């Protein structure tokens, strides 16, 4: 089991670009009304790609 998971740290800053979804290797994230949402948290492998690639510093991958 991965020991990290994604969290939405600053939801208001999300501009709905979808880059995190494009780079996530599994199916975790979705846009809901133009803002990012974690719809399948159990799929998250804690790889940190979404945190590193989000141009708006919205996401954080934290210890479980």
């Amino acid at each position, binding site marked *: 089991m991965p020991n*990290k998971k994604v969290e939405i*740290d*600053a939801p*208001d*800053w999300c*501009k*709905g*670009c*979808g*880059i995190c979804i*494009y780079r996530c290797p599994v199916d975790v994230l979705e846009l809901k009304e133009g803002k990012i949402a974690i719809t399948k948290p159990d799929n998250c492998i804690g790889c*940190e*790609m979404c*945190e*590193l*690639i*989000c*141009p*708006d*510093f919205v996401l*954080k*991958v*934290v*210890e479980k």
Partner: protein
Amino acid sequence: MANPDINKYYRRNKLPHIWCPGCGHGIITGAIVRAIDQAGLDQDKTVVISGIGCSGRAPGYLKFDTLHTTHGRALAFATGVKMANPELNLIVITGDGDGAAIGGNHLIHACRRNINITTVMYNNSIYGMTSGQFSPTTPTGSLATTAPYGNIDTQFDVSNLAMAAGATYVGRSTSYHVRELIDLITNGIKHQGFSFIEAVTHCHTQFGRKNDLGGPMEMMEWQKENYIPVKAWAKLSAAEKEVKKTRGLLKEEEREEYTDKYLALIKQVQAGEEKNG
């Protein structure tokens, strides 16, 4: 890699930033913050300096001593800060217009002097802020507001320029290859001497739209296909080498650093004066 404390490096009250949705400038700025953290710099002894452009806005969001200077002159200001305070860590943020066009002169001389400054050029191949004029890194044939029939200039390879001018650490990566970018900036910061990191990125709003390249995702896919690790690039055919570019560490060498030389000279002159009364 992720530090739960990473938020301490942002001026959170200034965010969200002004950049377009999906702009690569945010990815590079995040990479710089992580590199500063990985390199273990003291936040109170680190100065981030920029010129003008979309890229120039980055230091305004970063919680360090920062200077937002005039167009092209970030390296001139940074040289002054470093000469007066050699103990400070200097990071310069520039654009391809800011650093290779109006500021190209400052860039080559900072390289030549080998002054201990880490420069990250946000290279989006266009003047983003002023709505899409061609820059020295715009590919030949591409469209721009100032090249409505295609750019006739020869494109500058700014990493080659920095290497030829004497930078002692040069690396190139892209907004797609963010992990590699973070490592290159980290090692550039640790390097004693002038470090130049070319961060290739996408401006879908100006360059992408004018040249029909799609949005951020399509432009990042293009980077993925066209920027090749140095060793793999060397094995490409001559025709492929014309199109594809290298990424990774391009140069690393040791040479005496400029402020060290300057301080040594001061010591030497003062010792001579004492001796001669």
